[in-house]
């Protein structure tokens, strides 16, 4: 049994957890972050990619809007590299109540969200693929943000300040003695080994899973309802600006250009199990129909992949019955000392990506208060690793990089312009044998062919780096195909169906992956 010690143990490696770990480390606490899977594999890795200006909340929840705008500015400064300055527009389609526009405008002014009114002609000049029946719009400073980059940058920053990041380490128990959480046990998913961590403080930053972790410390009744939402990535950038419908927030009213794709989303259905990631056919149909309203011809555009994420909707049983529809999207910081009489334990849940840094700040401030120590937050002051230049992400970056070296390196994932060196580097750095981990890190196989050509190559390279024997590599390949299918099957039509058939031909007809040797049973 391994033993580790730290001032702070953060459980949960999404944006909140990574932000908390960074803040803690920067404040001089020795920090360990434990995440049961890969960083940003939970809700953070499955959200829309929208860095809110706050426009979405100006009418219903102005304080939330103001908070978004403030954090928007901070993140643009400290995480410039992970953000593409697309700008955003709120547009009024024939299906939107025209009266909302004035409310929206006033709401922006009131909440401090910079807003500029645009004529219909201007909206269409900026984004010619939009519905010509749009009657007008507003420009706001929305942006597109790369969640993985941000989370990994936070983790790296935390590491630079001395933190340890333990991914693929699942929290299995919390030990409470004398009314305080003193010990945590985490299990290494790869080896099955357990590590005991003696922590001065434990922060539960597991988002939609927060209830389970809180329960481990005897703090029951922390209910985080998973608000399931699906998103569909369309093969190319239909727009280069974040497009919102100018109306009461509802389903399918946002289209975000993220790197090489456009993502339409999202839906809102309460589910029981946040790990289910269910994708219902009706939800897909709804996304396509709403997409068609924004971009005529949307249904003929190639859909690449669909996924679901679970929003953490906090509902505190102990605080009394709350109307589920009005569950706040604001974050919830639960002081377990007050609520449950359990010391040295905080839960931070709810919230949205845009405000993760603030959530972390509030959490650390609370922790410092309870530890009776004054250590100011500097997370808004220091830029994240990779963003030192202050330059925002630019869509042409990978193309320019490849242009600089056309003959010196091999292109393994051609769709997403990933070179062999980059891939091998990531495989070695990440010390992972899971192709999906690499996918998340580099966007491998996230282009149109969804791995049809590059995954065989990546498997061969993984094997070449002597990380796996044949059967283990085959297993990684098969698992990848199965995982990919989940995201493709619900939107399999048109061009993507052609691709899938070609890929079936490659993997089964040509490579015959099905009949590759399997690993001997354990």
């Amino acid at each position, binding site marked *: 049994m391994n033993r580790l010690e730290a001032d702070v143990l953060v459980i949960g490696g999404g944006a909140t957890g990574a932000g908390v770990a960074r803040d803690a480390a920067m404040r001089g606490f020795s920090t360990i972050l434990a995440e049961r899977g890969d960083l940003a594999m939970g809700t953070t890795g499955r959200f829309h990619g929208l860095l809110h200006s706050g426009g979405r909340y100006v009418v219903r929840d102005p304080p939330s809007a103001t908070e978004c705008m403030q954090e928007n500015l901070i993140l643009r400064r400290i995480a410039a590299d992970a953000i593409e300055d697309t700008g955003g527009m709120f547009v009024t389609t024939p299906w939107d109540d025209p009266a909302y526009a004035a409310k929206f405008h006033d709401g922006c002014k009131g909440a401090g969200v910079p807003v500029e009114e645009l004529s219909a002609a201007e909206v269409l000049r900026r984004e010619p693929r939009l519905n010509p029946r749009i009657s007008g719009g507003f420009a706001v400073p929305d942006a597109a943000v790369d969640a993985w980059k941000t989370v990994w940058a936070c983790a790296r920053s935390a590491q630079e300040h001395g933190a340890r990041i333990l991914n693929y380490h699942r929290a299995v128990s919390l030990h409470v003695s004398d009314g305080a959480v003193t010990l945590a046990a985490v299990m290494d998913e790869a080896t099955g080994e357990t590590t005991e961590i003696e922590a001065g403080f434990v922060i539960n930053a597991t988002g939609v899973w927060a209830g389970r972790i809180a329960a481990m410390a005897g703090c029951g009744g922390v209910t985080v309802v998973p608000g399931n939402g699906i998103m569909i990535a369309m093969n190319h950038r239909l727009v280069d600006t974040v497009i919102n419908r100018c109306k009461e927030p509802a389903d399918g009213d946002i289209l975000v250009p993220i790197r090489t794709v456009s993502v339409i989303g999202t839906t809102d259905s309460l589910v029981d199990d946040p790990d289910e990631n269910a994708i219902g056919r009706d939800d897909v149909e709804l996304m396509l129909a709403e997409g068609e309203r924004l971009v005529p011809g949307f249904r003929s555009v190639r859909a690449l992949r669909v996924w679901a994420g679970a929003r953490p909707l906090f509902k505190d049983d102990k605080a009394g019955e709350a109307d589920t529809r009005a569950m706040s999207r604001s974050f919830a910081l639960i002081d377990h000392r007050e609520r449950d009489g359990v010391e040295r334990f905080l839960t931070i849940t709810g919230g949205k990506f845009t405000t993760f840094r603030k959530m972390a700040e509030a959490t650390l401030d609370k922790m410092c208060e309870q530890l009776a120590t004054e250590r100011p937050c500097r997370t808004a002051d220091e830029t994240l690793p990779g963003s030192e230049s202050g330059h925002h992400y630019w869509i*042409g970056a990978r*193309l320019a990089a490849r*242009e600089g070296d056309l003959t010196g390196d091999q292109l393994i994932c*051609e769709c997403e312009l990933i070179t062999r060196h980059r891939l091998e580097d990531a495989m070695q750095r990440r010390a992972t044998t899971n192709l999906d981990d690499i996918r998340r890190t580099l966007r491998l196989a996230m282009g149109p062919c969804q791995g*049809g050509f590059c995954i065989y190559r990546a498997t061969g390279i993984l094997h070449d780096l002597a990380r796996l024997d044949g059967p283990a590599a085959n297993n990684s390949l098969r698992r990848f195909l199965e995982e990919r299918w989940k995201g493709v099957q619900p939107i399999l039509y048109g061009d993507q169906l052609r691709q899938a058939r070609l890929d079936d031909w490659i993997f089964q007809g040509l490579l015959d992956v099905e009949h590759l040797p399997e690993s001997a049973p354990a």
Partner: protein
Amino acid sequence: MDLIDRLADEGAHESVRASLDHCVKCTICESFCPFSAATPLFPGPKFVGPQAERFRDPTGSSPDISLDYCSGCGICTQVCPQGVKIAEINARARGRLWAERGVPLRNKLIARPSLSGRLATPFAGPVNWALGNPYVRNLVERIGGVHRHAPLPRFAGRTFRAWARKHRSPVAPKTIVYFHGCSTNYFEPSLGAMAVAVLEHNGYRVIIPRQDCCGLPLQSNGSFDAARTYVRRLAASLAPYARRGHDIVATSTSCSLMLKREALEILDVDDPDLAIVSARTYDICEYLVLLHERGELATDLEPLEATVPYHAPCQQRGHGIGKPAMELFALIPGLNAVDLDIDCCGIAGTYGLKKEKYDISMAVGDRLFKEVRTAGSEVAACDSETCRWQITHGSGVPAVHPIELLYRSYNLSG
């Protein structure tokens, strides 16, 4: 659904950029691209087209200057099994590339054959001498970026339009409009005269309206605004005839393709004049084959005992009509026309004239030159002027437009 509507939906009008969605990464296009095979400077049509396009900001510049090594031959679009308009995506990206960086002076000059034609024609003799002089050519290469061995045509001195002004087309029951293009006017006026004679022989009164360059060289060199101006002007001069119900035939397969679809697909010229001209524009061989299918082609073709190797230019194949020249050759008794069925001669319009691209161009055309030489014939046939000049340059064999063989077979030179 009416098939013409279906043509509109699926054929001409699907947005070029949106067609990148059809790419399944099979890379078949790259296996047919003659230019990426000849130089590592061109990463290939799939890379530069549907793949890189996803990384381009439509309003900003393309960071990949390597796309300028695309010749625009269009073979990729032809062989793509999925209907991706690859060459057109590349062409549009090239336009944005040069709009951002500024079109080099050299490209501006070689892209205006009608301008150079107007300036040089009065001095054809000395100009031709100079362009044939190795010292002058060396200088031109060093200063102007045009390769010293590039197959530049000779100025004819007397333009086709000058001939046309003196020519009276006999009154006839049918009327047709002839779009001769810059090359016929300034470099090959005799081709124009032959085309007119063949048409008249087939019962047409031939109208030769005022006309200028179609803008294709400007488009392929990235000067999109200038190209649009030229093609609009051309469409405006031809449209009145099209509206009166007259068909338009062209002897340059690249220029007629510009009118048929490239001006719309690459330059976005969505213009009622162009639309009506487009619908009425035919390649001359295409037109004669259609006449033949209706039983209206004059069949008094006399034997031509010869073997003639035929090269269908890339942009002729881009019309999607097969090889009508070969069908016409089959009607000429004694003529053994051999379809060389080789991809590209390498010139790609103005591409092969450029100092940095000449060697690539010659490497691409090498196999074709060899085949033409070994055919051992007196002439080769090819529908595009720049290809003819390249073939002659590379093989030493003179090359003629297919219409010339018909002219001879009809025995019209008397």
